[in-house]
């Protein structure tokens, strides 16, 4: 495991230095090749399967304990949205294998309607990324990657976990690869009664059950040394009940169905790398305001997408990248006044990468979007990195990013507003990376200014309607310290992150709700031969839940700790135990929705 880790880091370094991406493609094929370039300049946390398996409840849990993101979750497993650097859920882009998959209705993603174990890797990228990833990548982006390897033979992994509140979690992953062909199939299943109690808050998570399943099929075929075709398909179905506060309240539920399919044609020579993609995405949701009755609202969205990413490597120092994209979005609502709406959208972007010396890297990008009937700004990004010496490097990023209005913003009836402008943001950050022996430290102050933020408020007739009314200014600091050491049969890992965020509505000069000023998260693990123990801790400072900074309704600060261990019992078998919320902390990430007190899980992992 660890060897693999180091190996990939070394690989990454090679890529960064020389643009020689074919090396990486020969080994592990990751669909989002742009992410590797971003790693040079922006803070990206990579969470691999072993990290994901430490927080198997859902993606919310993973991000809460292992990243800088604030997660607002309406009770365990229910509606959940992220906030990066003091921005909102709509200002976070969800990227599936390099493609933006935010809902075209809502303009955002619901984290708990993604099956955590349906991805081989999660990457969390702080900072703007609209030039490459498009609408919504303002505060940051969450990348859900599937990977395919060559020359690895036959591998199968089975994971099965049983936990408190009747939670069952499992996946079966099987892959085969030789020199030419790589195939991977996986199926995931999650189910929970989720009926936890928090007696101190007089709370029972009534109607909190959820279950979802996910199926992935990936394949890549190397036609010759220059051409590779790959394909990734995902089918997801989730049923989420929404928690209620007493038995007399009408029970509701939400069903989400997703189908995603992506074909990549990767052509590369020494000088040219071209990736052509075609994708088809389908999202369907159904909301039942009464669980026993027919759906009360819903919608289905179809996205047809074509994208070409052309990379020309002039020499070791200079490379040009052109990205062109076209998509057709179709939406049909149910009881929302949205009937068969369509939108053509396209963009062209160009990036220049210049490495005048081994110590200095630059990247500059420019992008223009063309979205039917919507004004869009010219976007840009500029990044520079200087390796000052062998233990310190300085990185500067500045960019303009945006989000265009979603179908609900425009067409929801009554209320939709066809005159909406895109939200735009200007931002800059200054990364400081230190490396000393086994320690790595990253300190990145940031600044974001968001204009024309779209907000839904009731109009004169009492009908909720969106308009571009808010300006937000946010600044803060992201920092993380990492330590890794191997000695003999021992391996120790430690990371500690601290995030300070000051995010204010410019008009009211008040803090944004659901943006904690302070968050600290830490992960530590120690392995000796066949046994590994680990602990996670997360401190979240006082968090306002209303726009008037009212202390009475703010979430109090909390510290939550989890710990677990796993033991390799035989060559291919590993068993694990975990205790979540060890200290029985009573805490909420959304007002009125306490999360579970101490709870347990036991799991089995088989590799063969």
């Amino acid at each position, binding site marked *: 495991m660890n060897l693999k880790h180091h190996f990939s880091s070394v690989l990454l370094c090679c890529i960064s230095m020389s643009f020689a991406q074919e090396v990486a493609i020969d080994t592990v094929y990751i669909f989002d090749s742009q992410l590797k370039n971003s790693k040079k300049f922006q803070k990206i946390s990579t969470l691999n399967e072993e990290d994901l398996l430490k927080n198997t409840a859902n993606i919310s849990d993973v991000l809460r304990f292992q990243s800088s993101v604030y997660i607002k979750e309406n009770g365990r497993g229910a509606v959940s949205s992220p906030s990066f650097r003091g921005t909102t859920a709509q200002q976070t882009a969800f990227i599936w294998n390099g493609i933006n998959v935010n809902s075209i209705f809502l303009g955002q993603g619901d984290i708990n309607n993604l099956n955590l174990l349906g991805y081989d890797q999660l990457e969390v990228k702080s900072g703007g990324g609209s030039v490459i990833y498009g609408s919504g990548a303002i505060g940051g982006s969450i990348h859900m990657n599937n990977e395919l390897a060559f020359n690895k033979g036959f591998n199968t992994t089975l994971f099965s976990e049983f936990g408190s509140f009747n939670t069952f979690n499992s996946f079966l992953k099987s892959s085969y690869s030789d020199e030419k062909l790589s195939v991977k199939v996986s199926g995931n299943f999650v189910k929970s009664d989720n009926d936890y109690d928090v007696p101190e808050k007089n709370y029972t998570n009534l109607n909190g059950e959820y279950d979802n399943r996910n199926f992935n099929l990936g394949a890549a075929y190397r036609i010759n040394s220059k051409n590779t075709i790959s394909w990734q398909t995902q089918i997801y179905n989730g049923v989420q009940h929404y928690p209620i506060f007493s038995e007399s309240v009408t029970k509701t539920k939400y069903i989400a169905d997703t189908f995603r399919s992506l074909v990549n044609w990767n052509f590369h020579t020494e000088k040219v790398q071209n990736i052509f993609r075609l994708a088809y995405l389908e999202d369907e949701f159904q909301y039942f305001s*009464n669980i026993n009755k027919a759906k009360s609202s819903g919608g289905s969205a179809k996205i047809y997408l074509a994208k070409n990413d052309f990379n020309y490597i002039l020499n070791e120092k200079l490379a040009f990248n052109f990205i062109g994209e076209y998509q057709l979005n179709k939406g049909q609502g149910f009881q929302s006044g949205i009937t068969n709406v369509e939108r053509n959208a396209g963009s062209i972007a160009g990036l220049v990468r210049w490495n005048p010396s081994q110590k200095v890297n630059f990247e500059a990008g420019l992008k223009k979007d063309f979205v039917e009937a919507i004004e869009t700004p010219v976007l840009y990004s500029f990044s520079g990195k200087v390796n000052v010496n062998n233990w310190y490097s300085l990185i500067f990023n500045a960019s303009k990013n945006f989000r265009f209005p979603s179908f609900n913003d425009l067409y929801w009836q009554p209320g939709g507003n066809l005159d909406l402008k895109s939200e735009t943001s200007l931002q800059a950050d200054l990364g400081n990376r230190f490396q000393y022996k086994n320690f790595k430290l990253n300190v990145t102050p940031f600044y974001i200014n968001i204009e024309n933020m779209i907000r839904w408020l009731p109009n004169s007739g009492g009908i909720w309607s969106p308009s571009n009314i808010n300006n937000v200014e946010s600044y803060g600091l992201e920092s993380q310290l990492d330590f890794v050491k191997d000695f003999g049969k021992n391996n120790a890992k430690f990371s500690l992150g601290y995030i300070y965020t000051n995010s204010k509505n410019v008009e009211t000069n008040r803090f944004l709700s659901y943006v904690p000023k302070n968050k600290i998260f830490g992960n530590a693990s120690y392995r000796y031969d066949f046994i590994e123990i680990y602990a996670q801790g997360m401190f979240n400072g006082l968090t306002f839940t*209303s726009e008037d900074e009212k202390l009475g*309704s703010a979430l109090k600060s909390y510290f939550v700790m989890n710990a677990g261990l796993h033991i390799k019992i035989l060559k291919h078998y590993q068993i694990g135990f975990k205790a979540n919320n060890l200290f029985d902390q009573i805490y909420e990430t959304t007002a009125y929705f306490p999360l579970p007190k101490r709870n347990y899980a036991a799991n089995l992992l088989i590799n063969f």
Partner: protein
Amino acid sequence: MKFPKILSSVLALTLLFNISCRTESDEPIELPKGAYENGIFVLNEGNFGTPSASVTFLSNDLATIEQDVYKKNNGTDLGDVLQTLTYNGDNAYLVLNNSNKITVVNRYTFKKTGEITAQINQPRYITIANNFIYVTNDEYLGPKSVTIYKLSDLSFVKKIAFTDTAERIVEAGGTIFVQNATFGFGNTLTRINPATNEVAPVVTLPNGNINKTISNNSTVYTIAAGTTDSYIYQISAAGTITKTTTLTGISNATNLDIDGGKYYFSSGNKVYSMDMSATVTPTTPIVTATGGQYSALYGFNVINGKIYTSDANGFTADSKVTVYSTTGSVIKTFEAGRATNGFFQN
């Protein structure tokens, strides 16, 4: 050893005797019934989907404000979307829309005394007549009804299904009126005879869509909005329109209240008043509220010569209450809970 105890008992008895002797000649002293005897309940509906409804108490002299009196006296959250309340005897009946219940409290102590949940489905409004409780229920895209309960033991009596919206419900002169209109759609009122609990003929208004129906002095008043003019209809207990006041040039009139022989109503952010006998539409508002267009006058009631309004602050922060005199000068402002929607004299 027992002596001091006996002594104190004697002392107590003597005191009691003295007190009763002293009051004998005067009118009997009325013991305070509870902390909330003299004042106004401010209803905060809360944010839909969370148990954030609350009741704020405001003393009659506007000097004392006490937040969240339900939680304070019962130790639990009140519920999800507090729509309205009505009184009967010592009780107040609180309608909790998304909690699907009517919570009964002692109106002077705010201690919970009972609850109705049977056949309650997204309740909207409530009224009491002839020893029955009448509740309108209106599920979004679902069934609509009036459910009837015995006042004595809160037991379910009857359900009357409606095909149209069932919104406000009032009692006037011994008849129940159900407003079949909501959000500016609908122009009929259904009557129910509380002696038989059978539906009586429907009242159809000639012009405008009904926004609010109230009962005053055994008569029903309803305000209906048209595209250019609005109307206030006076309807007798027998269901006859006895008077129509046309509010010329005022579109989309919404709130209506009656106090001191005057109508008070609103259109957009503007509050107007006119004598109930007047025929000329006022042109100058007495109050123009500032704030979010819709939420600036979310709550509106006129009580004893004072206009109580609330700005729901876009429903994302606590509401701001402003109390005006009938001439429009601000008497007091204060913060209540989330989404303040009404004011009720206790």
